[in-house]
């Protein structure tokens, strides 16, 4: 994927700064609303944007299932850990890397480590066959990402699987999450699933907005690259003023619709990890 290493489209710093300030201003009102909220804060993720802009109709079951660990929900964190191990040279194959990560869960839990997370406890509680099923799903996820990227070309500023958060300075109750599987400095790669949808540009623009709001200088971030492994399709969102406006508008729509997910289980997709 050359788009991960090529320079993003240039933008004037002054233009970028103005767009960032405009986006920040757009978020002041929702921040104030969040500060008045009595039932918890608002954490806005790309999932919320998708729900608001794309999935307007209720799910087929009519029931929103609470978050639960399954092979499907565990594949990303396990797969990311495996990719990290592969990039670091701690493992040579996805199978080995995932197996090592799953074994680590058992060690942490059975050793009573305070580092054991909910995912580790869930994994350790499964039978060997259950763990094999989870591992198989993670191996597939990891292999797809591992084989799609020329890792040697990505340089040394590589960050794998770290979500970035922006906390509103106007309210401690409003936070935005930018999710990216791989960050190269010039691009943030986001692994996408589900159908092609009109909301995907806003979902990816949220990554840029979070980077822009977190930044301590006026330099634009890298581009956001959305990738569907199922189809090989790519969507690029360049760091342009219009992208910030798109994301800020999407966030305000999420908050206006009250669809920010504030009641998920710990470690769920919209929940901020402990610092």
């Amino acid at each position, binding site marked *: 994927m050359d788009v991960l290493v090529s320079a993003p489209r240039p933008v004037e710093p002054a233009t970028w700064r103005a767009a960032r300030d405009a986006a920040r201003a757009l978020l002041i009102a929702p921040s104030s609303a969040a500060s008045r909220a009595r039932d918890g804060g608002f954490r806005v993720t790309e999932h919320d944007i998708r729900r608001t802009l794309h999935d307007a109709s209720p*799910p*087929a079951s009519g029931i929103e*299932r609470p978050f*639960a660990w*399954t*092979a*499907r*929900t565990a594949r990303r964190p396990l797969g990311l850990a495996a990719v990290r191990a592969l990039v670091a040279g701690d493992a*040579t*194959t*996805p*199978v*080995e890397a995932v197996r090592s990560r799953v074994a680590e869960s058992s060690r942490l839990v059975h050793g009573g480590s305070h580092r054991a997370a909910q995912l580790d406890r869930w994994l350790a509680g*499964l*039978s*060997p*066959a*259950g*763990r*094999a*099923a*989870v*591992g*198989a*799903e993670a*191996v*597939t996820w990891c*292999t*797809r990402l591992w*084989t799609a990227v020329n890792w040697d070309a990505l340089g040394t500023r590589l960050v794998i699987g770290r979500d970035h958060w922006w906390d509103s300075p106007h309210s401690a109750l409003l936070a935005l999450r930018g999710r990216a599987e791989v960050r190269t400095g010039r691009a943030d790669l986001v692994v996408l699933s*589900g*159908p*092609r*949808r009109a909301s995907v540009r806003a979902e990816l623009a949220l990554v840029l907005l979070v980077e822009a709001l977190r930044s301590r200088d006026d330099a634009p971030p890298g581009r956001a690259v959305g990738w*569907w492994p*199922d*189809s*090989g*399709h790519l969507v690029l969102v360049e760091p342009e003023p219009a992208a910030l406006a798109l994301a800020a508008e999407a966030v305000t729509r999420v908050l206006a619709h009250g669809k920010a997910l504030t009641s998920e289980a710990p470690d769920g997709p919209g929940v901020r990890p402990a610092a």
Partner: protein
Amino acid sequence: MVLVAPPVTQRQGGGATAAPVLRVIDGRAPAGGVLELLRTDGVARVPSWAGLAGGLRAWLEDAAYDAVRARGEEAPPVVLGARQLLGPAAAVHEAADPRTGQRAAAGACEPDPPDDDVVLARLVRALFRQIATVGTLDDPLHDACDALRADGGGSGAVLRRIESLTPAERHALRETLGAHASRLMELLPRPEPDWRPRTDERVAIPLAGGRVVLHGVFDLLVDAPEGPGRARGALALSTDGAWGRTRRSLHYLALLETLRSGAPPCRVAQVDSSSGRFGAEDVREEQLRVMTAHACGWLAGASWGTAVGGA
């Protein structure tokens, strides 16, 4: 070239029957079971696959566009898996059902409620995945059920069906599943990790801006040895002896992979756990063309007005 190995019982009873057939494929009988058939180095990649992929996609896009025009842009997406595309014409209703699209988008393909064949197929596939990943089984029924539990909500109906069985029915299921598991263990050694094996790899190709989606799932994909022309081999599992249908499904998956990555798997293999039959073949351009023509014909011939209630 299509090669089919005889059932396990026949091979065990008369190796002389099988050996000449298998020699044709790579010059030696595969000690590594069916996977060995996928890892033969002799098949070169056709250099023009990328051009072919573009042509096939253009062909399909034209057909998808016509289908969308016939149905109306507001109609729900048509989601075409091998079951709909290669099954009976009545399956058009299923393809056009919005719930099918939602299930496919979620990666699920489970009819509800599942019949006995579906239950067995889901259990065998869970064991297949375990064998391909860790290479060992303990108690097949326990292992398969544990795997489905970890799989999450999509397997709930199958598990409920199993829990509702009488002791006699459960015993029969255990016996049948054990036979399937034994054949798989014999035929399918765990792939070496450096083959980069992955199971249940989903492919979904949106056409006409996503209004038509061709999708399928590879039971097992492996990479070819390191070096130029690194390519993939694919394996499909059948549990009911549906040899021809599985083979056509593999051709469909090869087409999807061509559309996704620009080239099909070099070679595809299939194994049937009900009989122990297995075989492999090289993927050829004509198979991709035939499958593309079939998909276009399906889209052109579908009775959309009936299928989507006049949409």
